[in-house]
């Protein structure tokens, strides 16, 4: 499935957590690729391994307990190919924040409360672009203006506690995009925000992405958001990708019972997203613990279509048409 035009190719990623005797397989053989300028949405319920996937790419997981045991993450940037998993920590630091940047879910806690907003944007610019203190401060103000923060010069001297959640997320985006990264990883960047603010942040990310021709890995549990940002979608369940395809294929012609269930549980009215209860997928049962994955298909225990063959062997990702593929032996019957 190697795409020669891909910017990043995640190939059979396996990340485990060792706690005492237990081994939790949080990411269990995830593969996908992304081209420049393209957006892939990684969708799934909470606990399915989306954040661990994202943090594995950045190599930001705490090790121990985390350990990346397989296999390759090929980053083909500016004509050189390198496997991120074999880079030294020092080489990796030259990629983090410069070529691959990340925006996190929690805007309230992701900014340092004791550093000014301007400094938190400028420090990356000084480090990676070699800008002087003054030049970096000036560029930080430009970036704040670009993410629509009013009165950027004054704001850049303020501390994060003076800003709302939406404003802080704009600051995070400004800091992430300062060095024109080739890839932006956005881990549920709008989940903690109000619906109206969510829309604004999505719109901002989309316009910046086009402007910078940047690839984006957009992690979310919200299919409503997927329809707004994604070119392609990968549905994740219990550490594996269970279905992948274009946005239209996944949203209009899903084949995996889990994707169907997720779609069935998307609230009709957008305003319902405000209500956390309405946002949670109404699929009976829960995601299995990464420490005790069921044999065969990990969704079988919750699946209405499960037959003995489902739990006998781990289903392979089966192509349906084009890039649409599904990890279900009964997809023809769904």
């Amino acid at each position: 499935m190697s795409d020669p035009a891909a910017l990043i190719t995640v190939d059979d990623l396996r990340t485990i957590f060792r706690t005492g005797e237990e081994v939790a397989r949080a990411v269990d053989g995830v593969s996908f690729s992304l081209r420049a300028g393209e957006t892939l949405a990684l969708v799934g319920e909470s606990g399915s391994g989306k954040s661990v996937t994202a943090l594995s790419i950045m190599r930001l997981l705490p090790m121990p307990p985390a350990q990346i045991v397989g296999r390759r993450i090929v980053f083909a940037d500016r004509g050189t190919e390198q496997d991120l998993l074999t880079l030294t920590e020092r080489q990796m630091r030259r990629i983090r924040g410069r070529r691959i940047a990340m925006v996190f879910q929690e805007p309230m806690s992701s900014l340092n409360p004791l550093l000014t907003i301007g400094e938190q944007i400028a420090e990356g610019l000084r480090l990676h672009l070699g800008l002087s203190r003054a030049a970096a401060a000036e560029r930080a103000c430009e970036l704040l203006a670009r993410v629509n923060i009013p009165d950027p010069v004054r704001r850049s001297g303020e501390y994060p506690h003076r800003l709302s959640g939406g404003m802080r997320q704009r600051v995070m985006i400004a800091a992430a995009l300062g060095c024109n990264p080739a890839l932006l990883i956005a881990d549920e960047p709008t989940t903690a925000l109000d619906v109206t603010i969510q829309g604004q942040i999505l719109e901002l990310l989309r316009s910046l992405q086009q402007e910078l021709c940047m690839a984006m890995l957009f992690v979310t549990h919200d299919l409503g958001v997927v329809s707004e940002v994604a070119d392609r979608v990968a549905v994740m369940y219990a550490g594996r990708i269970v279905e992948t395809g274009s946005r239209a294929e996944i949203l209009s012609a899903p084949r995996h019972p889990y994707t169907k269930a997720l779609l069935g549980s998307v609230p009709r009215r957008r305003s319902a997203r405000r209500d956390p209860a309405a946002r949670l997928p109404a699929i009976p049962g829960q995601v299995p613990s990464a420490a005790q994955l069921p044999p065969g298909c990990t969704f079988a225990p919750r699946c209405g279509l499960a037959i003995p063959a489902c739990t006998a062997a781990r289903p392979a990702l089966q192509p349906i048409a084009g890039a649409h593929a599904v990890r279900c032996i009964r997809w023809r019957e769904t």
Partner: protein
Amino acid sequence: MAAYILRRLAGMIAVMFIVATLVFAIAHIIPGDPAGVMLGPSATAEDVAALRTRLGLDRPLPEQYVRFLGAAVSLDLGQSIFLGRSVLQALGERAPLTLLLTGMAAALAVLIGVPVGVLSAVWRGGAFDQAGTALSMVAASLPSFWIGLTLIEYLAVRWHEFPVAGYGAPGAGLLEHMRFLVLPAIAVGLPNTALITRFTRTSMLDVLHEDYVRTARAKGLHPATVVIKHAFRNARTAVLTVIGLVVAGLIGGAIVTETVFGLPGVGNLVVSAVLRRDYPVIQGALLVISGIYVLVNLGVDLLYAVLDPRVRY
């Protein structure tokens, strides 16, 4: 900020007023006549009466109280009964030693405790952390006087590296004085070093789990930058609290330290004043020690406000 400082100063004056009242009360609540106690059982009635008049003890209590407060405000702490000079003068002679010893012990505790605590947190569970934890456990559980006596036995008595006791000749230079204080400073500094190490480590561990530390790493910053600029910056207010407690404890503990090491500081002055019932000296020393205590606290709080933009004035 200026309003905040003024408010805090007003609070400090209120505290000192209460301290002064307590100090006054101690001398008068204790059964027996201070003048009689001071002069001892062999004194004549005339001597006692004369001292009572000199100390103003023959006046009505409220008047004595007002006079005492007035004198305290103008830093007129009265005359020592035995030393033949004013209390302020006696304190002034002894204070440099106590402050120098406190400063040296605190510097030792902070300069070793903070870096070791930070690195222990960063290398949590590693060899450095385990060694640091074991050593601080030992240091925290050893009594200062035992450390002191051991240091004296080896470094002073056997190997002659440092003086055994004392503070050097009165006119000696600062360095010479400091040489005399090295062993006592280590003795009282070590348990406090352990305290600061443990506390810094805990605060750093809390902070290292914060999301903004992950954000800093996601920017590709050097680990030292992440630890010092992003993590320690957020741990330092908590560390400052312990440092304040340590300094305050060292000043309060000066009485014991100076007795053990035979140092002529304020603590030593208080002990001999208590033994001789030199009430003006006791009262004056208590007032000054409490004043320093309160000032240290004020300093810590003001530093908070400087270090953390979220502190509301």
